[in-house]
């Protein structure tokens, strides 16, 4: 158990180091500054001790003055060196954190859709913020501290040996006690830090979810229940942080005690030696300074060790995501496509999200270029899945999908998606201006083209009524727009993308029929010459489709045109009749 943990720790540290290695140049400068400041930190007190001795033994001003001048110079240089080492180290640390965050973010972009199904958004966010914050905190201070402390420690021992080997030996007596104590403590803190970060992520997830679902919570008067659940998570976090902090609080206390013990030993034994004339009082004074210099770096190392543990707990969670497998890499023979005719063939395609629960079974159809294909069927029949496979959010388990006669697996995902425009069930908007939201469809579109697209989608009229027109900044939930308005923006976005393949998944479900009529025109124009896939429940919107595919329980049960299917008098005809009954007679 513990050996495995240690291995993980080493691995995590090595990975952090890989990021730091990018800053080799700066790191070298930092090392130089640390060497200088550490050397000065040793020389300073030594000369000070000499000066104290001198003062006590009655030096004259002409002797003392140059010595003090030297000391001023040394201390100034020391402070300068400390400033620069910190300055550059912060640069390195923040760059490392910057790159780690970027990596994690772009990795998230490349994870398959399935990865996100089981994760809470807030929990993932916590890894990018709270966990990274831990790494950042530690890198800022820990690296310098560890190096400085180690150097100071070595240097101090050398000088102490030089001053008095016996007193040095006595001082070192505390080291084994120290190590035993630290091991005991860090064994505990490490585990609690890990738990703390996990609880924090869990809570972050809960907060994100409850805040974004506020309306429902209010509507159902569930505030007290939500608060109760939150309290549970809050309590769990409190407990793990409590133990993590308590145990890490032991370290400085232990150090203080050992410090005092060694102080007493030095003064006691030193007193005897001084009486015997073996050492001067000045040496004892200097030695006590050094003994503090000796325990201080140990103390710092111990404290840093705690911080390092907490950083590793954070970094591990970051790397955990980075180790998640990316969306399958494009096959080596996959090629980029720059244009698409839009000839789509599904050949015996089967797919399941979870084992044993087949979502699509043996689906076959052919859509010729420029055709409009409508997918019809009860909810959960697999309509959206067909589209997910076509855009390769998932890959089929069995069967083949051909695009322009080419196996879809031989086309790179990005180039395929570039040729496709989507209007999805849930319209996603970003917290930026209306203009930029539309421009998302085509990043190089001019303002005029954006307005043009908005006009075509019939969104222009409501946009100019917004407080700042096209420059109105939307909230990320788009809660300041109605559902229908958001769909119009999504459609404008798709219009601007000018794709070869168009996918409309319930694109007009929340738009009133008058508005829909207006945009149907635009959509019809848009669909001209492009292969389009349309999912709609209002059958009247799809009656003109060239091909209607009727899905039920993941299987194609009928396909044909509206007329042929009505003639067949099967499931589709049934659906139409049931709508007609309720419809306008």
């Amino acid at each position, binding site marked *: 158990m513990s050996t495995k943990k240690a291995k993980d720790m080493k691995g995590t540290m090595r990975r952090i180091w890989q990021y730091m290695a990018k800053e080799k140049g700066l790191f070298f400068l930092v090392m130089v500054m640390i060497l200088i400041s550490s050397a000065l930190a040793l020389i300073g007190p030594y000369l000070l001790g000499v000066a*104290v001795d001198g*003062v*006590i033994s*009655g030096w004259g001003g002409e002797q*003392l003055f140059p010595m003090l001048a030297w*000391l*001023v110079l040394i*201390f100034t240089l020391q402070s300068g060196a400390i400033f620069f080492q910190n300055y550059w180290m912060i640069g390195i640390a923040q760059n490392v954190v910057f790159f780690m965050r*970027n990596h994690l*973010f*772009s990795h998230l972009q490349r994870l398959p*859709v399935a990865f996100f199904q089981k994760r809470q*958004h807030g929990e993932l*966010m916590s890894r*990018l913020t709270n966990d990274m*914050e831990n790494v950042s905190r530690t890198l800022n201070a820990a690296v310098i501290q560890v190096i400085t402390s180690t150097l100071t420690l070595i240097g101090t021992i050398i000088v102490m040996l030089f001053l008095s080997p016996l007193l040095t030996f006595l001082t070192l007596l505390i080291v084994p006690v120290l190590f035993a104590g630290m091991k005991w403590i860090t064994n505990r803190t490490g585990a609690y830090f890990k738990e703390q970060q996990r609880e924090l992520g869990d809570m972050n997830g809960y907060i*994100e979810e409850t805040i974004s*679902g506020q309306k429902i*919570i209010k*509507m*159902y*008067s569930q505030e007290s229940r939500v*608060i109760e659940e939150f309290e549970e998570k*809050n309590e769990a976090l409190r407990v793990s942080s409590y133990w993590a902090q308590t145990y890490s609080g*032991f370290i400085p*206390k232990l150090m*203080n*005690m050992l410090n*005092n*013990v060694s102080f*007493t030993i030095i*003064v*006691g034994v030193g007193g005897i030696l001084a*009486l015997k004339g073996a050492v001067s009082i000045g040496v*004892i*004074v200097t030695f006590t*300074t050094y003994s503090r210099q000796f325990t201080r770096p140990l103390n710092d190392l111990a404290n840093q060790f705690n911080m390092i543990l907490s950083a590793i707990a954070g970094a591990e969670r970051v790397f955990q995501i980075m180790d998640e497998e990316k969306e399958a890499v494009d096959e080596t023979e996959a090629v980029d496509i720059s244009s698409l005719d839009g000839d789509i063939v599904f050949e015996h395609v089967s797919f399941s999200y979870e084992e044993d629960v087949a979502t699509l079974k043996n689906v076959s159809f052919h859509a010729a270029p420029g055709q409009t294909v409508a997918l019809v069927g009860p*909810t959960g029949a697999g309509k959206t899945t067909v589209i997910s496979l076509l*855009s390769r*959010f998932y890959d089929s388990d069995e069967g083949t999908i051909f695009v322009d006669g080419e196996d879809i697996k031989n086309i790179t995902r*990005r180039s395929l998606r570039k040729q496709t425009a*989507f209007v999805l*069930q849930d319209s996603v908007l970003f*917290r930026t201006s209306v203009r930029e939201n539309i421009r*998302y469809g085509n990043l190089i579109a001019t303002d005029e083209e954006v307005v043009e697209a908005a006009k075509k989608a019939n969104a222009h009229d409501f946009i100019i009524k917004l*407080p700042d027109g096209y420059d109105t900044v939307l909230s990320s939930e788009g809660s300041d*727009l*109605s*559902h229908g308005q958001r769909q119009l923006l999504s459609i404008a976005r798709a219009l601007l993308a000018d794709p070869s393949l168009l*996918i409309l998944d319930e694109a007009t479900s929340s738009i*009133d029929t008058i*508005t829909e009529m207006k945009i149907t025109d635009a959509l019809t124009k848009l669909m001209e010459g492009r292969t389009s896939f349309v999912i709609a*429940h*209002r059958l*009247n919107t799809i*009656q003109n489709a060239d091909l209607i595919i009727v899905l039920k329980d993941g299987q194609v049960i009928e396909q044909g045109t509206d007329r042929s299917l*009505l003639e067949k008098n099967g499931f589709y005809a049934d659906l139409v009749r049931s709508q*007609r009954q309720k*419809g*306008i007679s």
Partner: protein
Amino acid sequence: MEKPSKNQKGIEKIEFLVKFMIIYEIILGCEITERGEQHGGKMMKRLLKFAKPYKLAMWIAVFFTILELAVELYQPVIMSIIIDEGIVKGNLSVVYTWGGILLGLSFIAFAGGIINSFYAARAGQGMGADIRSSLFHKIQEFAIYQFQKYPTSSLITRLTNDITQIQNFIFMILRIALRSPLFIIFGIVMAYTIHVRLAHILLISVPVLLLITIWILKKGVFLFQQVQRKLDGVNRVIRENLLGMRLVKAYAREPFEEERFVKVNTTLMDDNKKALRLMELSMPILMLGMNVAIIIILWFGHVELSLGGAQPGEVVAVLNYASRIMFAFTIFSFFMMNFSRAKASSERISEVLDEQMAELPQKETTERTFKGSIDFSHVFFRYLEDEVLEDIHFSIKAGETIGILGETGSGKSTLFQLIPRLYEISEGEIFIDGENIASMDLKNLRSQIGLVPQEAHLFSGTIKENLRWGKDDASLEEIMEAAKQAEIHDFIMKLPDGYDTHIGQRGVNFSGGQKQRLSIARALVRKPSILLLDDSTSALDARTEANILETLKEQACTILLIAQKISSVKEADRILLLHNGKIVAFGNHAKLLKESSYYQRIYASQAEGREAGNIVY
């Protein structure tokens, strides 16, 4: 009789502690930032409020800190005794006695330190958890419009990262920081008891260094506020990407998003560097200052010695105090960083805690069931200066089914949200069963209404848990009953875990139609007197939709139904037609068809689609 006086004493003690803490506040002043004017100086008082339950723990922590401190401060005295009385005079027994005392005191200090650790962590973590909890409470009390002021991402940062900063600070105060200022103060005092003239040097140099520190600190608070704000930005981009993952992939916009992220991440990095570098500046400055002070002491010590005004042991002791004060200062500079961060964060938290709650005048009413008649009396609703609804005036009888039609953005959803008072109306009155909803108990009002919003928002948890939102104590039978009515029961039973199937966040593993039906079932579990369906059947196929509406009609409740299709509302008792926030027509299908040209147009638009399909009715 004894207890109150004890409490009184405890409170006095706490007040003393706080006064001490407030010293920082006073020194800092209140004009740090714009926000600072509003919230500055409040931080400590706020912390004090949260500190109350932990006063005992804090006092124990403080007591042991002082104990440790006393031992440490006494060390140089013992050392000077050992040197002057023991070694110089050749008296070994003094060395042993005082050495023994020193050792004993060290162990006591150690034990005290361990105890301190427990109590400091208890107070620090406890207070942090309490602040977090009260912040969460407050957010739960927010009115809907307040959520637009604070983006979700920012609230998340405040609840986690900002509170962590404060937690670190409290722990720091109790464990280390309290020692530094005390150490500095008592260090100077002790130096005075040893040699007055040499101690003067400390008395001059320490305040000068302190002023420099405070200047850095003030700047730091501002800079760290920037950092936290940038963190909000990073959080926001991540969240938007998680929400829009499919869209980003669909448009192959990964590089664009990465660029966007790099941008916010860069500003975060830059601000972090700026803030941290400034804070790190304090350490070398303080060290240099104290080192120079030590050299000056040495020089004047030399002068004093040559004039016979000081003993060698005295000079050594003062020097010792000076170097200890220097170490205290370096710890202090570390603490300052925490202070600035905590101050910056606490202002962000205060901002939320100080948020004015919308006044919700409530008359305490007993739980009761509504019959379900609804009257709008000249209701106006303005949002951000925009007239969303104008002069809405209508009456609905209990048990009626009302269809609501209108163009996108005509105010249909807003109208719905006024009824359970998710938004408060600007003018006019709304009555349910003849009683003004403004004077009703909010919880009771909402418990009688089942609102099914456009977007079916589900929470992670099982299906059962999600449906139980409608009614906390619903039995499984009741849940199944509602699910059957929403035509989702059969589907649920087909799932491997049935009603215990886990729903991913926002119901990612369900189709749009399934989510909508779950959302309808959730509203039905509570058997509402008033059911508000906000276009909540848009993703359902016609047959399912028809079945559900049929079932609903049998319920003894008033139904308001927003729809896009006339076919969905044709069967309704009456249809309310909205246009640009005004009612343009109200009546049954036949009446509207005859009287309203607007309705005729809608009707035509929907009939046209039929004809285009060559289906003759």
